[in-house]
């Protein structure tokens, strides 16, 4: 294992992580909801009840605004370098949606929220998706 010190951003990542954790906490405090994005989006795609949709949309509006607040504060754009292109991009999108619907959660719901609640179910989910993600990147970057 070789550490990538050039791209290593421990402080920004730690502060960003704490902000994500605080957001999860505030959503639980204010609305009693788990901040799981796949679940929040799922309830927009297939609403169980019309009155259950607006809070989800308001949260998504905030998610769209957030990065611009950081751009304003830092005074520079956010670095975005795509990891894939062509047909693999929509395939990845579909598999992410399908998997998080079947597995009832993603990085935020099972990761940030599930682990903080000490849920064994979420810990198993996180271990599983980390394993397949690391394996996938290994295959894409070092085998193919």
């Amino acid at each position, binding site marked *: 294992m070789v550490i990538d010190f050039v791209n290593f951003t421990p402080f920004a*990542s730690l502060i960003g992580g704490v902000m994500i954790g605080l957001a999860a906490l505030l959503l639980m405090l204010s609305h009693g909801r788990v901040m799981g994005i796949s679940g929040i989006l799922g309830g927009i795609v297939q609403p169980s009840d019309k009155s259950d949709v607006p809070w989800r949309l308001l949260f998504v509006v905030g998610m769209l605004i957030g990065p611009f607040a950081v751009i304003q504060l830092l005074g520079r754009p956010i670095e975005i370098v795509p990891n894939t292109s062509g047909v693999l991009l929509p395939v990845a999108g579909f598999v992410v949606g399908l998997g998080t619907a079947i597995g009832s959660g993603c990085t935020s719901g099972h990761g940030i929220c599930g682990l903080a*609640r000490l849920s064994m179910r979420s810990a198993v989910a996180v271990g599983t998706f980390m394993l397949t993600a690391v394996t996938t990147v290994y295959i894409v970057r070092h085998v193919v």
Partner: protein
Amino acid sequence: MRHISLVLIGTLFGAGLALSGMLNPSKVAGFLDLFGVWDPSLAFVMGGGVVANFIGHRIVTRRGAPLYEAGFSLPTNQGIDARLLTGAGLFGIGWGIGGLCPGPAISSLLLMPGDAVLFVMTMLAGLAAGRILTSGPSARPAPQA
């Protein structure tokens, strides 16, 4: 305040994602690339997020109810089954290829419109497909985490 708070919390989440590096697919892949030149940054994102939430969660849920709702909606399903493993496994494959998970995909919609719009549209299609697939009569009720 009930509605504004949702936008503000969403903004805090989106800002956290942007600051942490989670919106950068190649950085995410750099974290997942354990056997290459490894960028450990995202371990700090998960660590910071989980610890902050872990400390506060205990205090928050000790209250009888949240501020704006009658009760807390916490997941009740504790089962570890094939469905959980299949779903999480598939998600990891897509995350490894695209370098985007659902939150960052949404938050980067206005920053990299081309890629993110295509990714989010197919992700929503996948979400719908997965929910239809798992909502048959044999499916157990599973709260979305």
